[in-house]
């Protein structure tokens, strides 16, 4: 790594980390007043809290996260392939078509199983 890259990276990341500290301003200038209503979860004006935040949520979200992992790793494999496609030629292209077809079959299976059916 060159010194140029290190210096610019350090200054930029430092700035990006420093700017959000303007959040402190409102703690200094803002008024302070407590109150029971302010300490309760926001409920669109209903004073009694209905339902808990730590309730169960749909299993679809977990399935989606796993699917994301599979297809994102697929994409990660494709970046080096894409950049060097011209050198790889026809053989590399056919290899990738086979790889994509395998994953496409998986996607079709997932869709047929109704995993992404949100009703």
């Amino acid at each position, binding site marked *: 790594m060159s010194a*140029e*890259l290190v*210096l*610019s*990276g350090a*200054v*930029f*990341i430092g*700035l*990006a*980390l420093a*700017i*959000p500290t*303007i*959040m402190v*301003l*409102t*703690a200094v*200038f*803002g*008024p302070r*007043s407590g109150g029971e209503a*302010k*300490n*309760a*979860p*926001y409920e*669109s004006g209903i004073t009694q809290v209905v*339902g808990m*935040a*730590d309730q169960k*949520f749909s299993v*679809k*979200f977990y399935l*989606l*996260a796993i*699917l*994301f992992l599979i*297809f*994102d790793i697929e*994409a990660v494999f*494709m*970046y080096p392939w*894409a*950049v*060097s*496609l*011209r050198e790889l*030629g026809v053989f*590399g*292209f056919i290899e*990738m*078509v086979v790889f*994509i077809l395998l994953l*496409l079959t998986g*996607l079709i299976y997932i*869709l047929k199983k109704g995993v*992404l*059916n*949100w009703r």
Partner: protein
Amino acid sequence: MSALDILIILLRVAFGAFVPLSFVAVLVWMERRGAAFFQDRAGPNRCNVYGIRAGGLIQNLADGIKLIFKEDIVPGHIQHKLYFILAPMLVFITALLCFAVIPFADVLVLGDREYVMQAVPMDVGILWFLAVVGFGVYGIILAGWSSHNKYGVLGGLRAAAQVISYEIPMGLSLVSLLAVYGTVDLSAIAQYQGQLLFGFIPAWGFVLQPLGVIIFIVAAFAETNRTPFDLAEGESEIVAGYHVEYSSMKFALFFMGEYVAMFVSSALIVTLYFGSYQIPWLSTETLVAHARPVVILLMIGLPVIAYFFAGWIKKNNRTHYYRADDPRSRETAIYVSLLWSLVVVLEVILLIYLIFAAGGAADRILVLLLQIGSFLIKTFLMCFVYVWVRWTLPRFRYDQLQKIGWEKMLPLALLNIFITGAIIVSFS
């Protein structure tokens, strides 16, 4: 490193950090006035400082000051206060860090040194962008979860699911683009787009990847949680989603983060598909070689543009008010005189350049400034597309959103890779 090196590094970093920030104000203004324009009303136009309203921009200043003087509330039911405070910072920081790799002008050659015009001159641009964008999800889901509010949790979950779903079509549409350009370096991608196809069409990304550009733009809208994909904060269903418990500057950071993300993804769309900083048909070499004619054209063009702009200002600002001494009645005169004095200053600078400095480093710096202008104008127009879409299209339902992502965009992106790959392999 010489002093010049350090100066240029600092200027680059300052540009990369403060241009997105100053664009936040412009974008908020554009959003409001754009909304007003699409809904046939006036929008914010009352706030003024001694009669100067700047077309409504002063409203942003007033809102910023209001947010600073709000009470800093951390509701009592929140158990993880650290995460609660960390979440808006994370959203903002990740949005800003993405801009580090966007090139805003061509490589500046001064003497025997070459300066890559990115805030941080990394040659793995797109990979950095994808990695940092992925981090943004943590901020959102942390905000939703630590709010300990059922709307917050639902909003955070929805946002996370949506962002990761659309990251796949986004990544895959990039694959075919990278196959065309043959590099992941955004600077090299921008230089590639300075070429001409068949001698007369600029080789911009959207010409080379007509399907990819549509997939990428749609995915970028979903990534930034903008309408029609703003399910995460759908006010008709879950109030405000993940930032329901936030107020004052903590809310402002989410707000700024959203607009910085919008600016950065516009900049990336421009960089990848709309020729980055390139001025159509005028490559960097052409501009440097013909710096004098360009300057003379600018010197003629500036007063003409200023004349029409001044006419537009006069047409759109009222001059008569009920109170005779209303400070706003002087506004138009102030704008017009400011505009003309700016033109005079620029003309003098250009004249000095023509007489004394033409040739050598000054040419290159001039071209650099022109390209920065071109880049900012293109990004501004792309941001307007974001506003345009927001006030034109209604919000999707959540199952429709996931259906589009997985059943339409993912196969389309794979098809795009297949077609692009086949064309590249058969022609090389």
